[in-house]
């Protein structure tokens, strides 16, 4: 039934958007993810499914087109890379505050500033703690293969609509630019306007249906007591997500004495490092968070009392390590190893770091 293709990660996710029945993509070019919009434009999705693809004048405009369209109960998406994502932070905070479902892809590149265009994982804090203002969260999915770029589109929209929340797919330049095999599934039909009314008329802006109250999408509440209540509601929702939606991959953790913790491209490299280390007789496992938020805190806690140490392997100066340490609470060793600014560590370096920082450290 499926269709096997060789695709770039950026192309696979674009095809994923079409097949998931996404209603609109609004975006602005930036390396290393410009292929997303290019692929969509070439595919004429308006002919394939009626999907809208529009190039905005900036990332700010793009995310606000997303915000507007997402208010209507449709499936809406944008994509960008680090600097462009930074520009969207005010709007992410609005989307969180007004509880609108939306999906955003960040194909991370080296920073800070203009940086370079090579793969990096240095937007972890921004993604998981909130780069915008206020107490809010967004679900963060970290694909580590082209297949997952494709697969996570449906996952992301399911979560986005289940919780009326923004879902950020946090990829990087390597996964965006590389080609791998990808198995495509069937086209999902886009919801009709009537189906949207049937499902989301309690909140979505579809035009005030006769007989119902007008729907309002806003993040404003000038009465601080009300705003606090709204925040309590948000926090409750976040707690629920933390309890129910953690996704992770475990590799050789059963007998592990040490744990590599890594996501995305780093996790792939740790996979190889694991093989090398195991060959040398080092019992190391890999815990790959697929949801970065909610973070697999319970699993880490559980492992913390069993293993001799965690190595947080990140293409950054050390960001996810804070979440690991928060879960470990001093119960075992935690160290960071990473290359950054667009450099990717080799599996051998990772093994060496495990030896020096955890086993020998």
């Amino acid at each position, binding site marked *: 039934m499926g269709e*096997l293709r*060789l695709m770039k990660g950026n192309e696979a996710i674009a095809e994923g958007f079409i097949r998931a029945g996404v209603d609109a993509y609004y975006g602005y070019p930036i*390396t*290393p993810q410009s292929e997303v919009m290019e692929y969509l434009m070439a595919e004429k999705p308006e002919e394939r499914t009626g999907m809208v693809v529009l190039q905005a004048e900036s990332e700010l405009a793009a995310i606000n087109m997303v915000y507007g369209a997402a208010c209507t109960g449709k499936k809406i998406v944008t994509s960008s890379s680090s600097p462009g994502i930074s520009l969207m932070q005010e709007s992410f905070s609005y989307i969180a505050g007004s509880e609108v479902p939306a999906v955003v892809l960040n194909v991370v590149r080296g920073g800070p500033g203009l940086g*370079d*265009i*090579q*793969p990096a994982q240095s937007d972890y804090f921004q993604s998981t703690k909130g780069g915008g203002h206020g107490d809010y969260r967004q679900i963060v999915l970290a694909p580590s293969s082209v297949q997952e770029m494709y697969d996570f589109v449906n996952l992301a929209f399911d979560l986005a609509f289940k919780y009326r929340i923004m879902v950020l797919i946090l990829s990087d*330049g*390597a996964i965006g*630019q*590389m*080609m*791998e*095999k990808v198995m495509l599934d069937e086209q999902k039909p886009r919801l009709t306007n009537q189906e949207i009314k049937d499902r989301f008329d309690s909140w979505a802006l579809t035009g005030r249906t006769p007989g119902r109250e007008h729907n309002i999408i806003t993040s404003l509440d000038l009465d601080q007591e009300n705003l606090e209540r709204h925040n309590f509601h948000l926090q409750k929702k976040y707690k629920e997500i933390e309890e129910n939606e953690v996704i992770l991959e475990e590799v050789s953790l059963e007998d592990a004495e040490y744990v590599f913790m890594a996501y995305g*491209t780093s996790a*792939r*490299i740790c*996979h*190889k*490092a694991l093989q090398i280390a195991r060959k040398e007789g080092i019992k190391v496992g890999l815990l790959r968070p697929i949801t970065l938020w909610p973070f697999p805190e319970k699993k880490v806690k559980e492992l913390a009392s069993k293993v001799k140490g965690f190595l947080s392997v990140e293409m950054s100066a050390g960001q996810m390590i804070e979440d690991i340490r928060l879960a470990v609470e001093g119960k075992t060793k935690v160290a960071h190893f990473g290359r950054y600014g667009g450099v*990717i560590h*080799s*599996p051998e370096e990772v093994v060496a770091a495990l030896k020096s920082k955890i086993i020998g450290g």
Partner: protein
Amino acid sequence: MTQEIIIAGFGGQGVLSMGKIMAYSGVMQDMEVSWMPSYGPEMRGGTANVTVILSDERISSPILQIFDTAIILNQQSMDKFESKVKPGGTLIYDSNGITHFPTRKDINIFHIPAAKEAGRMGNIKTFNMIILGGFLKIFPIMKMENVIKGLKKSLPERHHKLVPMNQDAINRGMEIVETVQTL
């Protein structure tokens, strides 16, 4: 089996699509594959390179520092990648435009006079298929039928009529590849 290959040359030599055909051939043979182009402004300088990994196992990083095999198609790439072949690995090059020939003694070196041959065959566009043929001769890791399938997959339908010509070029490459030095 894992083959980690860098193909490097000028833009326009068909570097990226040669990599793509290799990768697609791997897919047809049920291998794991990855294809990773260099991207960004260095493209502006006119160079192009792509890392192709073919393997029986899950592939970790698509970006590598060192390679099993380097296929080198201009001097700049020679300067950059000769040193990046693993000891015991393989370097394949076309001497056209090369001024400093490879000097390493710890790797296998092959020469494919593909540009000249493509010229003689009257179609410069087959250049990259000749190189591919040479590679396949050295590493017969893929069956020809899978290569042809890969070729078809990577060409738009309307170009499928060019398949026989490309197949000829691959065969020609297999014939003309010459050993410069083997370990």
